[in-house]
């Protein structure tokens, strides 16, 4: 659970979200702006800063709970075992240091290394992401948006960590650059075998790249399943709505349908199911009672439609959380 302290009382940005990520897996988290997906990500990466804080819950990584881990121990885990790629590379790179200096900073924080080796390592990761190593001498403002983003990914790969956390790394790029970056990320992942936690609001972008897809709404996980599965056979009415709100390249032409209404104010979420004011299948129970989570093997959905074995899929079971 992540809450933001606000004058009017705490705002719960992430509410009882539970995820498991296997080594080498690519998990995408999608949702509208303000649904808590970035908060979830920063909570996992232990990068929340006031007024946001984790009020309860745990983040288990390599057998340790990162929430209770001492700062100093956490610092050693950072970058070596998991690294972060941020949304806007312009703001995430220090404007007064060259790319090379920033790579060196990250390396030296975890490993004493002679200058020659350090340079070789830096040049290596720059080549991995397809940037000419001469740009190690460049300052961030001298690179294009795409190159900056690649430089960030290069930085994230310095230690070939087990997990790379990415917060909408492609959102500042045009579609062509987006796609080539995604292909590159996927190729690097295949080569080095790190797991990827990827947050985006662009479902079509991750559709070809992620193994599993998690859908968040108003701070809660509403659906989780294999990417193919979710695309083909969405369970939650919100996911269904999302699917209908972007065009499919193949398949016949159809009118795009948005989801009516706006996401709720997390300071005052609606009673019952948080999606009920916008849901086309709303039932009386939805207005008063929050839905439990129903699971089918590793998949998960939070919707009353699947209560008591009803609904389209009979093999769904209720899980208590």
């Amino acid at each position, binding site marked *: 659970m992540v809450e933001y302290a606000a004058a009017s009382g705490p705002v719960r940005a992430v509410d009882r979200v539970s995820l498991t990520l296997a080594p080498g897996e690519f998990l995408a988290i999608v949702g509208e702006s303000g649904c808590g997906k970035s908060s979830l990500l*920063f909570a996992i*990466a232990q*990068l929340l*800063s006031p007024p946001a804080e984790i009020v309860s819950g745990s983040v288990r990584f390599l057998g340790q709970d990162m929430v209770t881990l001492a700062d100093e121990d*956490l*610092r*050693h*885990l*950072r*970058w*070596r075992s998991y*690294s*972060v790629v*941020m*949304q*806007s590379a312009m*703001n*995430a*790179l*220090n*404007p*007064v*240091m*060259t790319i090379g200096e920033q790579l060196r*900073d*990250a390396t030296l*924080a*975890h490993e004493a290394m002679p200058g020659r080796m350090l340079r070789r390592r830096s040049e290596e990761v720059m080549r991995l992401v397809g940037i000419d190593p001469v740009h190690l001498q460049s*300052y961030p*403002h001298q690179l294009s948006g795409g190159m900056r983003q690649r430089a960030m990914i290069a*930085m994230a790969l310095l230690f070939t960590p087990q997990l790379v956390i990415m917060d909408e790394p492609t959102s500042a790029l045009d579609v062509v650059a987006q796609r080539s970056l995604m292909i590159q990320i996927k190729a690097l992942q295949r080569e080095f075998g790190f797991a990827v936690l990827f947050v985006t609001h662009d479902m079509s972008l991750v559709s070809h790249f992620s193994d599993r897809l998690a859908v968040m709404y108003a701070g809660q996980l509403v659906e989780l399943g294999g990417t193919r599965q979710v695309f083909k056979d969405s369970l939650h009415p919100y996911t269904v709505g999302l699917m209908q709100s972007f065009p499919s390249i193949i398949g016949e032409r159809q009118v795009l349908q948005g989801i009516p209404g706006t996401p709720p104010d997390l300071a005052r979420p609606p009673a019952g199911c948080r999606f009920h004011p916008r849901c086309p299948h709303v039932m009386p129970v939805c207005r008063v009672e929050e839905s439990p989570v129903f699971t089918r093997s590793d998949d998960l959905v939070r919707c009353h439609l699947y209560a008591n074995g009803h609904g389209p899929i009979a093999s769904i079971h209720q899980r208590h959380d």
Partner: protein
Amino acid sequence: MTYLLRRLEFFVVTLWAALTLNFILPRLLPGGPEVALRTRFHGRVNPAAIKSLEVALGVNNNDSPFQQYLSYLGNLLHGDFGVSIGFFPKHVVDVIMLALPWTVGLVGMATVIAFVLGTLIGIVSAWRRGGVLDSVLPSIFVVTSAFPYFWIGLICIYVFSITLGWFPQAFGSSSEVSSEWSWTYISDVLVHSILPAFTIVLTSIGGWVLTMRNNMITTLAEDYVKMARAKGLSPARIMFHYAARNAILPNLVGFAMSLGFVISGALLVEIVFNYPGLGTFLRQAVNNEDFPLMQSLFLLITLAVLLAVTAADFLTAWLDPRTRERA
């Protein structure tokens, strides 16, 4: 490179404008050196002697203002600042050299100390925002900065020198200690400078604390600081290389300006402590309508500010790669 050239160009143009204003302004004042001379020696010297004095000083001649302006510029180019009227027959340069080390030493050091200390306090209190340090120090320094510094100076003299007797009340050094490079003389000068320096630091530090703290808080919210944390850098490295290094940039020009104004001396502090610095001399020059000294002091102040600002521009260019190409 173009950036630096443009800054130099700016420097030259501003300097010329300042020199010209410096020529015009004192001549707009009521009275004039000849009147002041006559008043000063009234009845004691015969008019012929005054006349020859005026010729010696080069005042009250019949040149047109434009000719005066040209010879003024020419004299400046030759480093000839004229003869002081108030300290006749000393040359202005000698008078200034007498006072300059005192002011640069006292006000310069106090300004540097206030900036360094204020910036450090600003950095740390923003870093531990809401902590004990942050809730106490900035508020205290805001209050002390709001006091006029001659008043703080008077209080300091009353408390630390009259009541407690820890420090001397006035002057730059004791008259019984001879002014040579001996340890007794240096320590004597240091003891004399503590109270005025403390007064300047106390009244000027608040501005640095507040601006640095605010810049830091803005910078700490930047993604690259979050990124630095994600990289697992040590807190000190994040604080100084990522946050403070960026947060200090807007403050550099302000610091340079205040260094430039060191030359004008903390006028009131020097008067309160009877300190033999430029501020005291400037006041005397104004009282005596000592044009050459006044003009030279104003010139020195302008030059110092301009030099300091240009130095700050170069420093910013060195610290912030983005400015280098902005020209």
